[in-house]
């Protein structure tokens, strides 16, 4: 970063009264829902519990919607304040205080948090509504909504906390909720395994984040955003780089970035609303939030920023390639999520130029990806929970609402001019090209691949010939599921309005800092045209390779090496196995051996030695005063001789 690039200091106004006094309620409402549904309901007497089991999902939905309403009011109140006064803090209580470490339960509501609050509670509410229909026949529905509420509360804690420890609390909370929800259908071994995989891989990232917090405390004596941002200038370059890299490790785990990406595709074992809410729209973007929120560290750590860009670029291509080869509709979408988060990370790695666009793309992606996941859920609902796209085809007639809403999401993600994704992705690529030509070109390539795999998905599902299983009768989903789809489709189309008059850039500037504008190598309009052309190329390729041909119901075996690699998740699991799991197993084996031979040997040998010594020494204690007196005399001699030897010798 150039000299003088200082991120703004976080200095919230804790005295803001009025509606901001209710900030804590945004978290408390879904938390209350979770507590009632998970902790209280099981202890209710029979009839009351049956009532909660029947209507609990409505309570869960109501808390999410109420939280959204409150977020909206807060947002409007924030809009009403001057740009300089849009950081509002709330001190709830002192969480813990030990030595010089003083951590408060503090909330920070600023421009960044405001947007996240709307996304989480808004999309969250829609997905709660959708899940009422999707989970209607599940016997453990109350628990499902309890977990969803728990997730929302944890995610809001993550976003609203004013220090890194509170953020970590939310971070772990969403990790827990994610684990519980991926494994919600725990009777399926694959779901249980996927939950464990997500949990374990996330631990690796969490270690990074917790080390970063510890290092922060050791360096600055605080973990508060405000205090840290005020003192980053005093830390050494090495410390800041280490902080940035550790935070990036945390972000990689949560946001499924290479090399911690392997859990996301398996996480699709969870119910589809979960995939939409947690593994597309909100939780997986927490890594992007972390990087943007920690801008005061990354601004001063150019090495870490470069690492963010590298990770992001690799991931956006990695995810896109996976998306091309997957026949499972949810896994194809998951690959796409990984790739799109790569775009966000890329923008976040670019510094103040990119931060607003990272958040912008995060929001639009939240809309269109949630839309498509819910659409995929709707398709699965109609196809008897079959996820293989090779068994779909020509569903546009059978499921018109799903088709149309899905199409809006599709056009948004490939960046069809005018749709939300067009604006957000265009801005990221433009900024990337201005910063680094190679990264920019790869990002353009990624856009082309995105167009290819999304068109393939679209064609396989809604067009081409019918390849349905026997006895499957696709039908449109109930209203409770399609209404959220329509709302999200509308948002996917119109999300671009946030960029009107550079609104989002101006809005976020007090948080992310002022950007020095770099001239891109081509005029902006030329870049836009170039991207659109590449996208059109991707669409055309998909049309020629998939749309014009007969689609086999079984995936062909005789395929190129590239396809095989992509189907195997680019050997992500194999890489993990070779690099982490097998050495880890070896290490543990070695440690166990050492424990058995070395430690046990020392302990048991030691106790045997002490016991033997004890038995021998006991004989000295023979009960005769004369020998006691002799030992006393000997001791006295020893003491005196020792004193003389030490001092005169």
């Amino acid at each position, binding site marked *: 970063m150039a000299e003088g690039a200082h991120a703004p200091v976080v200095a919230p106004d804790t005295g803001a009264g009025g509606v901001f006094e209710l900030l804590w309620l945004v978290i408390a409402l879904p938390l209350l829902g979770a507590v009632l549904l998970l902790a209280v309901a099981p202890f209710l007497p029979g009839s009351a519990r049956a009532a909660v089991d029947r209507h609990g999902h409505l309570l869960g939905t109501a808390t999410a919607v109420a939280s959204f309403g409150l977020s909206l009011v807060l947002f409007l109140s924030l809009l009403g304040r001057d740009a300089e006064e849009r950081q509002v803090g709330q001190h709830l209580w002192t969480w813990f205080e030990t030595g010089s470490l003083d951590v408060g339960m503090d909330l920070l509501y600023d421009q960044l948090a405001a947007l996240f609050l709307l996304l989480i509670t808004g999309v969250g509410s829609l997905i709660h509504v959708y899940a009422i229909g999707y989970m209607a026949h599940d016997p453990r529905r109350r628990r499902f909504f309890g977990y969803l509420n728990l997730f929302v509360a944890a995610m809001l804690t993550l976003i609203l906390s004013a220090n890194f420890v509170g953020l970590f609390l939310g971070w772990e909370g969403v990790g827990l909720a994610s684990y519980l929800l991926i494994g919600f259908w725990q009777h399926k071994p694959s779901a249980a395994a996927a939950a464990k995989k997500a949990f374990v891989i996330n631990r690796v990232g969490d270690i990074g984040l917790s080390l970063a917090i510890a290092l922060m405390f050791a360096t600055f004596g605080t973990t508060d955003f405000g205090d840290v941002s005020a003192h980053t200038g005093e830390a050494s370059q090495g410390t800041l780089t280490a902080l940035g890299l550790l935070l990036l490790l945390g972000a990689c785990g949560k946001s499924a970035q290479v090399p911690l990406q392997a859990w996301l595709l398996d996480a699709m074992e969870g119910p589809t609303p979960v995939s939409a809410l947690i593994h597309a729209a909100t939780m997986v973007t927490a890594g992007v939030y972390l990087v943007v929120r920690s801008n005061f560290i990354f601004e001063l750590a150019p090495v870490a920023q470069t690492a963010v860009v590298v990770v992001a670029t690799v991931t956006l291509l990695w995810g896109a390639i996976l998306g091309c080869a997957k026949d499972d509709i949810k896994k194809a979408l998951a690959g796409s999520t990984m790739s799109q988060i790569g775009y966000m990370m890329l923008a976040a790695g670019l510094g103040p130029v990119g931060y607003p666009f990272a958040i912008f793309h995060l929001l639009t992606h939240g809309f269109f990806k949630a839309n498509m996941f819910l659409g995929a859920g709707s398709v699965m609902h109609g196809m008897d929970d079959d996820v293989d796209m090779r068994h779909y085809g020509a569903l546009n007639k059978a499921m018109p609402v799903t088709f149309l809403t899905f199409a809006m999401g599709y056009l948004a993600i490939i960046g069809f001019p005018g749709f939300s994704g067009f604006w957000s992705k265009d801005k990221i690529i433009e900024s990337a090209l201005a910063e680094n030509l190679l990264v920019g070109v790869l990002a353009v390539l990624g856009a082309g691949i995105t167009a290819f795999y999304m068109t393939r998905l679209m064609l396989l599902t809604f067009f081409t010939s019918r390849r349905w299983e026997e006895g499957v009768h696709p039908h449109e989903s109930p209203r409770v599921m399609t209404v959220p789809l329509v709302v999200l489709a509308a948002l996917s189309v119109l999300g671009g309005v946030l960029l009107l008059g550079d609104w989002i850039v101006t809005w976020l500037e007090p948080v992310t800092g002022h950007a020095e504008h770099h001239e891109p190598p081509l005029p902006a309009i030329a870049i836009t045209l170039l991207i659109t052309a590449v996208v059109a190329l991707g669409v055309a390729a998909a049309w020629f390779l998939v749309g014009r041909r007969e689609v086999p119901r079984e995936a062909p075996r005789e395929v190129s090496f590239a396809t095989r690699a992509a189907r195997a998740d680019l050997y992500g699991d194999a890489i993990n196995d070779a690099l982490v799991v097998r050495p880890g197993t070896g290490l543990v084996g070695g440690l166990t051996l050492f424990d058995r031979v070395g430690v046990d040997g020392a302990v048991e040998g030691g*106790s045997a030695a*002490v*016991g033997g*010594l*004890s*038995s021998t*020494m*006991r004989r*000295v*204690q023979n*009960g005769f*005063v004369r*020998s*006691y*007196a002799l*030992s*006393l005399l*000997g*001791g*006295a001699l*020893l*003491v*005196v001789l*020792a*004193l*003389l030897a*030490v*001092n*005169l010798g």
Partner: protein
Amino acid sequence: MTEFVKPTVEYFELWPLLVVFGVACLGVVVEAFLPRRVRYTAQVVLALGGLVLALVGVVLVAQDVQTHDDGAARGVLAVGGTIAVDGPSLFIWGLVLALAIAGVLLFAERHLDGGVSAFAGQAAAVPGTDAETAAIAAHREHTEVYPLMMFAVFGMMLFPAANDLLTMFVGLEVLSLPLYLLSGLARRRRLLSQEAALKYFLLGAFSSGFFLYGAALLYGFAGSMDFAAINEAVRNDVGSSSLLLIGTGLLSVGLLFKVGAVPFQAWTPDVYQGAPTPVTAFMAAGTKVAAFGAIMRLFYVALGADRWSWQPMLWIIAVLSMFVGAALAITQRDIKRLLAYSSIAHTGFILTGVVGLQATDQLATGEITSVQAVLFYLATYGFATIGAFAVVSLVRDGGGETTAIDRWAGLGKESPVVAAVFAFFLLAMAGIPLTAGFVGKLAVFSVALAAGAWPVVVAAVLASIVAAFLYVRVIKVMYFDQPVGDGPSVAYPSVLTATTIAVGAAVTLVLGVLPGPVLDLAAVAGEFIR
């Protein structure tokens, strides 16, 4: 030859000391003139009243004492400079008095053994003769134990407060002689008890000889018995350093004998086992507190300037005590002997704190001093020990107390409360967190570490591991082993012993959870005056 000046006696500051001494003398008079049937009540009331009065006196004096002339600490030199009433003295006085009150309660217990106390009916009667049988039948008991104990308490208070070698020797003897007698007064297993008393007396007298010889040599070196003068002489390096070193060594023998440090520990298990359990409880707790007070005063005040020469010697003794105590305890089959060896190991741990002496200006702010750490450890150790021995007196079979460890098997089922309390005391001695023992160990280890005695601390941590094993072994026997025969039975104590055990357990718990107030108190006690 300077002319003899009649010393002034500071009656207010010496009030606790004088009350205890007065009560002891009064006890003798009571014994001589009151009829036998009222003596028990009279003696118990007199002893308890005197101790409480003295304790109140300690509190009043502690609030009143002013900063001493040297400006470093608070305190008064009384009786012509022979007795130092300073912070550590007052802390130890308070502690000894509290332990003595608990001791009187244990002495007065008459529920456990069919309406008589734990002391012999008629000590003069030869064991196994008709005279003894008659004394038992007549339900006689020795009430002389109370004045004897009061004299011992007086000695325990004088010993750590003594500010010259002669007064210290007087304190040592006043504390020891009554204890020799008390050790021989057990009602049951009298031969064992008498043997213990005789051994204790012979070895005690032997070690006193060393002390006296050392005192003479030190006088030869410094030309004075007074600690301040000795300190001055050591500082100015007058005279022969071999006189100083040999004198220091011989004095340490006498003092280390009293605390049962290796290699002067041989008497401890035999005496602890043979003495009546209430006496063992009082003696184990009180003597150690008093003697460590004296050790610190001698080494810190008189020989503080010479600490580089005696610290290595104490390092070795501390390590030896910890290891020999812990290792020998492992193979013990008698609970009282086991506790005796455990007390030897504790001596080592406390010595670890003693070697943590540093000059005041070397202390970082907020760091605790070695005096503070040792005083705290003594408080934790004293209450846990007296409580543990009180529990031992409850577990009985037909022949009196059952001290064989394997007979304790199944105690956890027989009497869960007693077993749990005893287990708690053992865990405290092992230094498990949330007990006082942990904080005490932490305190002495940290001062030793701060003073650079890390080899001792490493050894102490290793010894703690060995010691933990022996305590846990007893817990395992109580809870998991199959009882032998009918298993142990637990006698229901009167409120006296119950109070002692409850107070011991409560103090051990509170000091473990909230050590702050007592640590502060020990810090307020401050340093020795010179």
